[in-house]
């Protein structure tokens, strides 16, 4: 593992209307190829942090750097350029129901206007990594929760992002499926992608030896090893 930070969060503070403080002076960095967990209860600020990294929201104070670029200074109309550097996996899958698994995954490349040949090749590769090569023509409602999450992961990695954000990716899955999804994340991490995963499930992080950043009521309480 190299020490170059791919993501840097510097003193980020975010307060919502009515004085709800979601993040309070949070700072940390994620190195290339690192796998980091953000742990905390509901309302700890994990999702707000991800929303700030993906520029769905702007911090009140502080800076966010991705690949040595200060993204908080990027104009709103250019925010798609930031998002193209990041892969995102959600708890509730967010697949498009009228598209097949293949179309859902290739959609991430299609909106970038890439060639059909490249899209075909990369989509097949991503689906192979997540083990969904046999379900390419199925629609999301025809898949199990684990398979849907695999499809989402394939969509997130098909663009070869440097960093993957996963917000409670196993939140809707049973224990056995969660394990297989975690194995998949480990595999993706080994292939060179940095992963930042928000979770409140201690079983997932324990015994991994990976860095854990603990958030509580919007404040960073400390760091630990799983």
């Amino acid at each position, binding site marked *: 593992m190299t020490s170059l930070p791919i993501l840097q969060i510097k003193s980020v503070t975010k307060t919502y209307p009515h004085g709800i403080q979601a993040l309070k002076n949070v700072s940390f960095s994620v190195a290339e190829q690192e796998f980091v967990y953000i742990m905390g209860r509901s309302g700890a600020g994990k999702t707000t942090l991800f929303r700030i990294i993906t520029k*769905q929201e702007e911090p009140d104070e502080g800076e966010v750097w991705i690949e040595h670029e200060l993204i908080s200074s990027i104009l*709103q109309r250019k925010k798609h350029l930031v*998002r193209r550097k990041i892969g995102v996996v959600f708890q509730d899958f*967010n697949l498009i129901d009228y598209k097949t698994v293949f179309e859902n995954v290739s959609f991430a490349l299609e*909106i*970038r206007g890439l060639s059909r040949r490249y899209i075909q090749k990369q989509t097949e590769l991503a689906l192979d990594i997540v083990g969904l090569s046999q379900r390419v023509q199925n629609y999301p409602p025809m898949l199990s929760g684990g398979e849907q999450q695999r499809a989402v992961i394939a*969509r997130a990695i098909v663009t070869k992002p440097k960093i993957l954000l996963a917000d409670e990716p196993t939140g809707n899955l049973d224990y056995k499926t969660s394990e297989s999804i975690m194995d998949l994340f480990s595999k993706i991490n080994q292939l060179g992608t940095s992963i930042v995963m928000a979770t409140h499930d201690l079983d997932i992080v324990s015994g991994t030896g990976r860095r854990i950043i603990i958030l509580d009521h919007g404040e960073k309480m400390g760091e630990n090893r799983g």
Partner: protein
Amino acid sequence: MRTVVNSLREAKQVWSRNPATYIVCTISCFISLFCIGIVSVFGIFVYQGAQAVGTRFLNVTSFFERTANHEDINQTILSLESLEGVQRVQYVSPQEALQLLQQEYPDMETSINPLPSSLRIEPKSAKDVPSIITYLRGIPSIEYIEDTSEAATNYSNIIRILLILGIALLLIFLLAFIFSVSSSIGISVFSFRKEIFIMQLLGATPGTIRAPFLFIASVCAIIGGICNAIVLFPVVQYVYQFYQSFLFFSPIDMNTQLLSLQLGATLLFIGFFISITSTIFSVSRHIQ
């Protein structure tokens, strides 16, 4: 090219999600454009008619003294023709005046002609009348001046009110058109919020997100515009005939087929432009 194909594919999905909304949107586009067309046709005819009738209404008649000779009259005609506000000067001899009078009152005794020579002066506009009258008052051989500027001013005020009313109606129908398109696209954007959210997080540009909605709005506006052009064609002929029979004393000469074509094409373009603009606005508001 691939981006266009992808956008068309997404537009198909957008359409299939709310087909009734877009059918209503197309009908609204058609009705709004048709109403704009009808108001415009009336506006054009009223304007043309106003010019024709205004020319008839607006004139100054100056009556010469019976002692005025041909030289005085010719000199007055020449000097009036050189005035800036004068459109036309027509000389009416005592004999011609008598003939006109006889036409109106055939039973009248005409052994003696008491009528003087006169000049019928057509000003360029009502505002030129006072300067013409002032000028005529300075000519000693002119005994009496008669002008219709008051009637013409009243007439032009009525026309002005009609035009203001027409513009107000046009604005109302334009607003109805904008509201119809933007609310239909608003509904469609709302029903596609999940897909838009996914597209945004995958790094789609605002243009890529807008493209399917722009395509749908364009289709609605074009279909509405073409229907309007087809229906407007016979309606313009009918309105023209009605207008001609109404203004039989001062007919207007217009190529109504060309007018229908021009109006249909202009409204199609305006409809397309407004749809595109209001769609960009609706989707951008959601993306923000």
